C-alpha cells in the first residue's frame, strides 16, 4: 500500500521584546540564573500581570504577515497544570479566542508554491528552565525565561513531506526575521518547533493516529525526524501494528525518534478566562497601523530584486533568504555599486568570510559603503579583483576603508606603461620556452607570461594593460 504523510507544525517563538510579557524583567537570555525575576514572574502571592503592548503588537504583526484574521476582541486564559517550570502552576495563554487565526504561508515547492494553512497564532508566557545537572538528587529551576512572551503558531495538517515541513520552517523563520520579532535562535530556544505526524493510505481522507515529535534542536533535525517517523509508522502499519498516540523525542546521534511518554488521556487543562487581565481589543485603526508598519516581506523582496536589479531568481532567493544579507546588498547598491558585482561579492566572498568567522553581517566591521567603494576601485582599474579578494578580509575585520588600505599597502594597480614594459622584457628574457611557444602560435603561453608579470608585480599590474604590453614586447623583440 502507498501511504502519504499528514503533518501539522507547532512553532513556539519567543518575541524579542525588551521586557517580559507581564512584568518589567529583562528578557536577556544570558543573565545568571534567577536574576531576571521579580514577584510577578515568580508568581509570588499578591502579584498581578499587566500585559505588554509591544508583545501584542508583535503578535498581530506576525498574524498579518501570515495573512491571518486578527481578532477584534480577544482575551487571555489560564491553562492549569502543575510543573516546576510554571511559577503560578498555570500558564497565561489564549484558548478559544487567539489573537490571530485562519492564515496561511506560501512555500515554494517543486517549482510552484503551496499554501500551508495557519490555524492560529496566540500569545502566551514562556516557562522557566529546569536544569538537571545540580546533583544531590535535585533539579534546579531558573525563572529568568519564565514570562518571556511566546507566540505559538499552529498550522493545519497541510504538510505532506519532510521537504514541505522544512520549507515551511525556513520560510516562517525568514518572515519572523524580516518582521524583526524574534532572534529565531533554535539553540537558545527562542524558536522551537514540533511536528504532529501521521500517515494514511494515499487517496483516503481519514487521519491516522498521530505522534508528536518534540525537542528537536534544528530544522535539519526536524527534517530527519519527520523522514524517520514516516518510515517508522509505515513499517509499523505494514507489519500489521498500530500507531500509539504519543510524544516522541529525537535522538540526533542515533538518528531515531523514541517514545517519551504515552499521552495519558488528553490533559484536563481547565482553561478559563484570566480574571486579572482585561479583554484585548484590536480595532481596525490599530490593525491598520500595525499593517502599515510591516516591512517588505521575503517573497515581495525576492520578486523586487529580480525586476529592479535584474538578478536571477536563484540569486534573488539566496540574497533575500537572510534579511540582514539582503539589507547589506541593497545598501551596497545604494552606495553606488552595480547590482551584479555587488550580489556576487555579497553571496560569494563576503558570505564565505562571515561563515569562516562565525559572525553575522550586522556584527562585523564592514560597511556597505566600503564594499561599494571597493567594487568601484575594481571598476575604475585602481585595483584588480585579486587584490580586492585579499583586501576584503581586512576590511571585514578592521572596518578600514578600501582606499586607505590600498594606499597604506601600496596596492595601487600599476598602470604605468614604461614600468610594465621593463617588467615584460625581464619576463620574456627569463622564459625563453613559453616565449618561443607563443611565437610558434601557442596563444595559451601568453597566459603563463601574463601570470608571471602579475607575480613579479605582486598582483599590482593592471591585468589588461599587462596583457597588451607583453604582446607588444613579444612582437618587438622577435
Amino acid at each position: 500500500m502507498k501511504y502519504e504523510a499528514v503533518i501539522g507544525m507547532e512553532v513556539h517563538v519567543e518575541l524579542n521584546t525588551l521586557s517580559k510579557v507581564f512584568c518589567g524583567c529583562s528578557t536577556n537570555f544570558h543573565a545568571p540564573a534567577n536574576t531576571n525575576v521579580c514577584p510577578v514572574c515568580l508568581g509570588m502571592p499578591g502579584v498581578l500581570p499587566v500585559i505588554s503592548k509591544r508583545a501584542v503588537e508583535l503578535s498581530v504583526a506576525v498574524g498579518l504577515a501570515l495573512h491571518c484574521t486578527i481578532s477584534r476582541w480577544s482575551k487571555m486564559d489560564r491553562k492549569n497544570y502543575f510543573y516546576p517550570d510554571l511559577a503560578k502552576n498555570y500558564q497565561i495563554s489564549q484558548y478559544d479566542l487567539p489573537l490571530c487565526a485562519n492564515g496561511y504561508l506560501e512555500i515554494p515547492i517543486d517549482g510552484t508554491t503551496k499554501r500551508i494553512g495557519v490555524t492560529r497564532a496566540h500569545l502566551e508566557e514562556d516557562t522557566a528552565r529546569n536544569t538537571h545537572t545540580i546533583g544531590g538528587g535535585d533539579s534546579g529551576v531558573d525563572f529568568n525565561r519564565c514570562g518571556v512572551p511566546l507566540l505559538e503558531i499552529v498550522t493545519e495538517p497541510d504538510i505532506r513531506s519532510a521537504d514541505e515541513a522544512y520549507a515551511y520552517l525556513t520560510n516562517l523563520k525568514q518572515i519572523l526575521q524580516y518582521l524583526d520579532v524574534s532572534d529565531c535562535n533554535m539553540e537558545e530556544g527562542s524558536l522551537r518547533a514540533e511536528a504532529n505526524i501521521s500517515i494514511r493510505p494515499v487517496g483516503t481522507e481519514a487521519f491516522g493516529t498521530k505522534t508528536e515529535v518534540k525537542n528537536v534542536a534544528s530544522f535539519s533535525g526536524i527534517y530527519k525526524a519527520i523522514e524517520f517517523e514516516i518510515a517508522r509508522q509505515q513499517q509499523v502499519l505494514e507489519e500489521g501494528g498500530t500507531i500509539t498516540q504519543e510524544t516522541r523525542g529525537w535522538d540526533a546521534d542515533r538518528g531515531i525518534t523514541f517514545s517519551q511518554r504515552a499521552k495519558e488521556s488528553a490533559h484536563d487543562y481547565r482553561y478559563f478566562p484570566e480574571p486579572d487581565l482585561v479583554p484585548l481589543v484590536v480595532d481596525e485603526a490599530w490593525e491598520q497601523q500595525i499593517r502599515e508598519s510591516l516591512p517588505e516581506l521575503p517573497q515581495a523582496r525576492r520578486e523586487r530584486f529580480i525586476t529592479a536589479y535584474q538578478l536571477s531568481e536563484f540569486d534573488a532567493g539566496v540574497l533575500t533568504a537572510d534579511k540582514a544579507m539582503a539589507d547589506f546588498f541593497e545598501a551596497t547598491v545604494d552606495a553606488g555599486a552595480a547590482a551584479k558585482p555587488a550580489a556576487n561579492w555579497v553571496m560569494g566572498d563576503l558570505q564565505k568570510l562571515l561563515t569562516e568567522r562565525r559572525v553575522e553581517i550586522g556584527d562585523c566591521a564592514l560597511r556597505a559603503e566600503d564594499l561599494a567603494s571597493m567594487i568601484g576601485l575594481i571598476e575604475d582599474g585602481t585595483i584588480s579583483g585579486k587584490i580586492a579578494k585579499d583586501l576584503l578580509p581586512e576590511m571585514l575585520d578592521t572596518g578600514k576603508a578600501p582606499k586607505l588600505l590600498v594606499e597604506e599597502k601600496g596596492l595601487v594597480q600599476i598602470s604605468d606603461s614604461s614600468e610594465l614594459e621593463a617588467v615584460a622584457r625581464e619576463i620574456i628574457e627569463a622564459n625563453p620556452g613559453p616565449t618561443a611557444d607563443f611565437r610558434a602560435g601557442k596563444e595559451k603561453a601568453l597566459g603563463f607570461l601574463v601570470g608571471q608579470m602579475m607575480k613579479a608585480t605582486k598582483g599590482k599590474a593592471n591585468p589588461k594593460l599587462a596583457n597588451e604590453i607583453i604582446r607588444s614586447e613579444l612582437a618587438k623583440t622577435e
Partner: protein
Amino acid sequence: MSNTWYEKTAHEIRDAVRAGDVSAAEVTESCLDRIAAVDGQLKAFIDVWNDAARAQAAQVDAKIKNGEDPGPLAGVPIGLKDVLCTKQGTTTCCSQILKGYRSPFDATAVERLADAGAVFVGKLNMDEFAMGSSTENSSLQTTKNPWNLECVPGGSSGGSAAAVAGHECAITLGSDTGGSIRQPAACCGCVGLKPTYGRVSRFGLVAFASSLDQIGPFTKDVEDCALVLNAICGRDLRDSTSADLPVPDFTQALKGDVSGMKLGMPKEYFTDALGAEMREKIDTAIKVLEGQGAEIVEVSLPHTDYAVATYYIICTAEASANLARFDGVRYGYRAPGVTNVDELYRKTKTEGYGPEVRRRIMLGTYVLSSGYYDAYYLKAQKVRSLIQRDFNEAFERCDAIVTPTAPTPAFKIGEKSSDPLEMYLSDIYTISVNLAGLPGMSLPCGLTASGLPAGLQIIAKPFDEETLLRVAYTYEQNRGFELAMPAALRAQ
C-alpha cells in the same frame, strides 16, 4: 496615666496629632497598650509590630517637628488583614502553607496608607485565604466577637472587625470577596466598606477570587471611611483591573442630607429568611433615613436566589487556580522527605491547607474540569450577567439600595462549622454586590436583645461610593444611639 487615645476615631487622632495636641508616639503607645491588654481575649492580632509601629510614629512626629505635612492620616494606628502583602513581618493568609512567608513588597493600598502618615500596628486574623464567614478557618487562632466572647466576629476579615470594635486600633483594612468586610463589620458593630471592583488596587492582596476581591476599610465611623478611601483609591499601573477614573474627595460626601434621594428596598431581601429582630432593626434604620427626606421605593433583584450558587462556582473556580502556586517550590511550606515532584506537590498541599480551603479547591477544580465547564462555570458567568443586569435595572429606579447585611447576628463559635452549605447560604445578602462589582457598605444599626450588633447594608452604583457615604453619614448622624464600648472589654 490614663491614655485613652485608642478609643478615638481616626479623624480625632489625625486632628490632634496635626495640631500638636498629642504625638503620634503617644497614640501608638496607647494602642499597643490596649492590644496588650485585650488581645489575649479577642485574639484579633496574629502579629503585633511594636517596634515598627513606634519607628513609624517617630517618623510622623519628626515630620511635624520639621514643619512637613505629616499626611491626612497622620499618626493613625492601622491594623492589616494578613491577606495584604507587607515587607514588615510575615504574610501568611493565616495558612500553614505560607507559614513564615516574607513578602518582598508592600501592597499598593498599604503603601498609600503609609504615605498618608498611618502607623501600622500589626497583622490581623482571618479565615485561611479569606475562605469563610466566621474566622474559624484560621489555622492560627479563633478570634472572638468583642460584644460576646463566645460568638464569632464574622469573617473572613474577623480579626480586622474585632480589632476596630475592640478599640485596638482606629482603622483596619480587610478584603471582601463575598461579604468578608461587610458581614464581620455587621457582626462586630463597626463600619465596613467594600469599594467598587477596580476602585482600589488589588496589587499585594493575596488573591482568593480575582474577579470578586476588593480591599476596604473597617472604621469606627463613616467619616473615617471617607478618609481611608481618599488614601487608598485610584488607579495603579500594577493592577490591570484598577479603574482609570478620577478619585473624588470623599469627605465632600459627608453632608448629612438625603432629601430627595430614592432608596430601594429589594423585595427578595426582605423575606422570611430574615429574622424578625433583624427585620425590625433594618426597618427602624430605614425609617431614620426616610425621616431625613429619603424616598423609599420597592425594587426587585429577581435573580437573588441564584447568587449563592453563582458565587460559589466562580469563586472556587478562580481560587483553584489562584492557590495552585502554593507548591513548596519558591516559598512557603514544603512537606519534608519528598523524593519526587509529584509527591512534593501532593504532600505539601495536603498538609498545608485546612479543610475548607481543600474543599473549595476541590469544588473549583471540579467546575472547571473537562465536561463540567459549560454546565457550571460558563452557566454561572451567564447568571452573573443577569445578576448585574438586575442591579442596573434597579438603579434606574433608585439612587442606592438598602438591605440587611446578614440574616442573623453573630453566631456562637462552633455552631455552624459542620455544615459548609449552610455556612455558604449565610452570605446571601452580600455576595450579589461582589458579583455585580458594586460598592457596598455595612454600618451598625443597633444591638439585638442579646446585645449583638445588627448591620445595615447600603449598595450604590459602580464608582458611586459618595452616595454610600452620604446615606451612611446621614444615618449615623441621625440614628439616635451611640454604640457603647463592648462590656467585655471595658476598663481594662
